[in-house]
């Protein structure tokens, strides 16, 4: 069966050009970049090229790029570095809709005695800026806010709020794992001190991430070891993956600059509008005016997400859900709950996330298969008929 892959916020396909760039680093150029001999040492120059490619994608200087193993490592390193650098400050701030890489770290730090503030969002997933600014104190060590949300695609105004936070002398970290490659990023125009991104969300392989560290920002490494990454992240470089990420960053920038990424936006809008037309009692989760171009989170009332996903799976359609059952927990996604999405809708929320590989025929297949699936599950649901009656008086 053909796979119709609309789960690109989970992970992406490695671009064939990326794979091609990587392969020689497994077989031919396997030397250690730290070696004195030209065979190994020569690889260091190519890593430098990759560093420049990544830097250009986000408007950074090459020396501000630290290669890590994944987004989670970057997030953890950044937040821990900030609190270690300011040991007298005992307050840390984030939002209620962060990825578990940040959310769970904050919960752990809270148990260790840090005072934590989780900034709320409104029904559309927009950050409560007044709440944020009101809660900054001289004791605040770091503010960590995602640039865009993985479940809804809602974008926070990181450019502006990072400057405001920085004015207060507080370190600002942003998790841009979902943002890089989807909308233009220019850290030089922001107050961002640290930024995380991940290779496998932008058509590079899994197992490679980046921590951007603004020049002059206090830092202490998480991985202590050799002098790799200027001593900021020990451990022999994952050469092939770094080369791949460099290529992926270059390609992502090309697609953004040339405007060819815009077709993702068009396909997403088409998918969303048609579903809303064809499936009654469907809501969009999140601020439609301020969202990543590739993401839509749709809530189908009175049905449950896992059932929808498994029926889509029968046609090879891949998506994901904010429902309780799929996550292995019993409660629906903390993001949807923080937004106040009613339970009738939260359990039936499905996320479709596109990529530059998504085609019109992918969208057409979903539009053909999804409406009957929802209708069928609603016929099975004890709540549907009552809801319909209520709606029609």
């Amino acid at each position, binding site marked *: 069966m053909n796979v119709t892959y609309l789960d690109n916020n989970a992970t992406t396909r490695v671009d064939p050009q990326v794979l091609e760039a990587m392969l020689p680093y497994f077989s031919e150029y396997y030397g250690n970049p730290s070696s004195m001999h030209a065979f190994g040492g020569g690889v260091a120059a190519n890593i430098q090229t990759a560093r420049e490619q990544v830097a250009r994608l986000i408007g950074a200087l090459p020396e501000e790029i630290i290669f890590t193993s994944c987004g989670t490592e970057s997030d953890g390193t950044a937040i821990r570095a900030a609190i270690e650098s300011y040991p007298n400050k005992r307050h840390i701030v984030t939002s209620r809709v962060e990825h578990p890489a940040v959310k769970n770290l904050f919960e752990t730090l809270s148990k260790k005695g840090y005072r934590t503030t989780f900034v709320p969002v409104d029904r559309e997933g927009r950050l409560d800026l007044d709440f944020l600014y009101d809660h900054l104190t001289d004791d605040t060590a770091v503010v960590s806010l995602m640039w865009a949300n993985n479940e809804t695609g809602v974008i926070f105004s990181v450019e502006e709020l990072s400057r405001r936070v920085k004015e207060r002398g507080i370190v600002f970290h942003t998790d841009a794992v979902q943002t890089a490659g989807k909308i233009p990023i220019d850290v030089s125009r922001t107050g961002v001190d640290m930024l995380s991104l991940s290779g496998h969300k932008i058509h590079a392989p899994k197992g490679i991430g980046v921590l951007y560290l603004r020049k002059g920002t206090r830092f202490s490494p998480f991985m202590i070891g050799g002098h790799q990454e200027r001593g900021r992240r020990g451990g022999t470089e994952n050469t092939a993956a770094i080369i791949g990420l460099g290529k992926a960053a270059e390609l992502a920038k090309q697609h953004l600059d040339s405007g060819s990424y815009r077709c993702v936006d068009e396909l997403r809008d088409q998918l969303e509008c048609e579903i809303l037309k064809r499936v009654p009692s469907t809501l969009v989760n999140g601020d439609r005016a301020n969202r990543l171009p590739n993401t839509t989170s749709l809530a189908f009332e009175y*049905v449950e997400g896992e059932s929808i996903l498994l029926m889509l799976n029968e046609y090879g359609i891949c998506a994901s859900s904010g429902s309780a059952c799929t996550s292995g927990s019993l409660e629906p996604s903390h993001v949807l709950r923080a937004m106040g999405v009613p339970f009738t809708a939260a359990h039936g929320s499905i996320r479709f996330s596109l990529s530059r590989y998504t085609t019109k025929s992918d969208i057409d297949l979903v539009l053909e298969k999804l409406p009957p699936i929802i209708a069928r599950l609603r016929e099975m649901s*004890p709540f549907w008929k009552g809801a319909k009656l209520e709606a029609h008086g």
Partner: protein
Amino acid sequence: MWEYTDQVKDHFLNPRNVGVIEDADGVGEVGSIACGDALTFYFKLDESGKVKDAKFQTFGCASAIASSSALTEMVIGKTLDEAARITNDDIARYLGGLPKEKMHCSVMGREALEKAIACHRGQAAKIVEGEIVCECFGVTDREIERVVRENQLKTIEDVTDYIKAGGGCGKCHDGIQEIIDQVLGGKRLEPIKPKVLTNLQKIKLIEDSIEREINPTLKKDAGHLELVDVDGNRVIVRMKGTCATCARSHITLKHYVESKLRELVTPDLVVEEVQ
């Protein structure tokens, strides 16, 4: 991704007996939209008192739909007494097993069946005795105790998998652990029995004890027993399954069944077997 058996997939993708029975003889509703799953179960009896038709409507995940569908197939053709003996484990086994995180779907099936039978018998939906332990999912200490006992659960995580309790904020974890410790330690919560039993109360308590306590244990060896009659302090039972052919069943009867009933109901009971 959950690892569902072929039977679960089949009952999910091709659910049997979806719908409503307008003139049902019994209806049981459990769950809620807030909890993430809910089931309404209907049955209709024929003249001989056997389940002629059963239908369901379910809001929930694949295993909730499959458990509901399986339940309808399992009860059709059975008398209510036979149907009442279906446990959540029976439902799970009918489906070739459920992932352990999804066992609560089978418990939901058993609960809906019980409520529907109670509804038919005119017992106002079985009063849930006990105190709420898990506030997130509204689960009481007695419900937790029962599921721990019937399924030999050992950890809080097990309890969450089976009945959801403890799967929300986590504040009740200590309370759940206490109940597990009590059950594992062989202690029961304060017995729910009045000091002097009327005949009806006595019969009910005997029935209840067999169903909740004795049969789950016998079932481990693929046997069970059926209550035939209660005459004064004589409890007449019929051994079924492997117990019916087991040479040592009289030992089980005297040493386990009788002493258990004496402990749980009243100390002067005598258990007798009929073939």
